[in-house]
C-alpha cells in the first residue's frame, strides 16, 4: 500500500465522519452535504483499492493477501450500504450512523496497512 495515500484516505474518512456526526449532534440533516461527503469517502476507498490492485499486478503483494482482499472488498461496500441503511432513518441516530459508516473506512484502512506488511 502507498502510505501517503492511506493517510489521505484516513483523513477523508475521519473528516467526513466527524462532520456528519457533528450534524447529528446538532440534529441537522443537510442531505446534499452528507451525500457529497459519503461519495468522497467511497471515491477514496475505490482509489485505494485500485492502487493496491496496480501494486499487486506489478508484483508487490500484501503479506496476508487473503485477509487484505477481504478488507478491501469490505471497504468498498461499507460506505454505500451503510449510508443507505443509516439515512433510511430520518432521525439524528440515522445521521450518526452515516457518520460511523464513513469512519469505518479509516479503521479498515488501518487494518489493510497492518496486513499489507
Amino acid at each position, binding site marked *: 500500500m502507498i502510505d501517503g495515500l492511506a493517510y489521505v484516505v484516513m483523513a477523508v474518512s475521519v473528516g467526513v465522519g466527524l462532520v456528519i456526526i457533528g450534524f447529528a449532534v446538532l440534529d441537522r440533516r443537510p442531505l446534499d452535504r452528507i451525500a457529497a461527503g459519503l461519495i468522497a469517502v467511497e471515491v477514496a476507498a475505490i482509489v485505494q483499492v485500485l492502487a493496491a490492485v496496480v501494486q499487486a499486478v506489478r508484483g508487490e503483494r500484501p503479506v496476508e493477501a*487473503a485477509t487484505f482482499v477481504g478488507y478491501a472488498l*469490505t471497504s468498498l*461496500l461499507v460506505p454505500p450500504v451503510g449510508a443507505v441503511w*443509516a439515512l433510511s432513518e430520518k*432521525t439524528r*441516530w440515522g445521521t450518526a450512523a452515516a457518520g*460511523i459508516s464513513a469512519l469505518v473506512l479509516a479503521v*479498515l484502512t488501518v487494518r489493510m496497512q497492518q496486513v499489507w506488511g
Partner: protein
Amino acid sequence: MASRFLAVDGSTRRTSSGPGRLLVLVYGVFALSAGARAAVQIATKFDEAPEAYLLSAFAAVVYLFAAVGLARSGPRARMVATVAVLIELVGVLTVGTLSLLVPEEFPDATVWSGYGEGYGYVPLVLPLLGLWWLRYTARRPA
C-alpha cells in the same frame, strides 16, 4: 429472565430505530469484514489454520444473524437477535480466554482472539451493548 429480552407480550420498541441503527450498522460491518476475510482465507489457504478460519466464518454468521435480527421487527427477529448476541458473548469470552491460556492452539488470529484486542475490544463490548439494547427496547413500548 429471557422475557426481559424477548418481551413475550409483544409490547416492544423496534430494535432497528434510534441507537439500534448504529448497532445494526456495526454488526453489519463485522459480519461483512469477518465474512469476507474468512471466505477468502477458506478459499485460498484453508490448510494453514482451518480451525481459525472456520471460527472466523462462524463468528461472521453469528454477527449476520445478530444484524438481521436487530434490523427486523417482531418477536421472532428479537429471539434470533437475542440468541445470536448470547452466542457472540459466550464466543468472545471462551475464545478470548482460550487464546490467552493456550495460544499455541490459535495459530492465526480470529476476531475473538484476546477478547477482540485486534479490533479495539469492540467484539467484547458489542454483545454487552446488544443485550442492553434488546432489554431496553423490550421494556419500553414505542
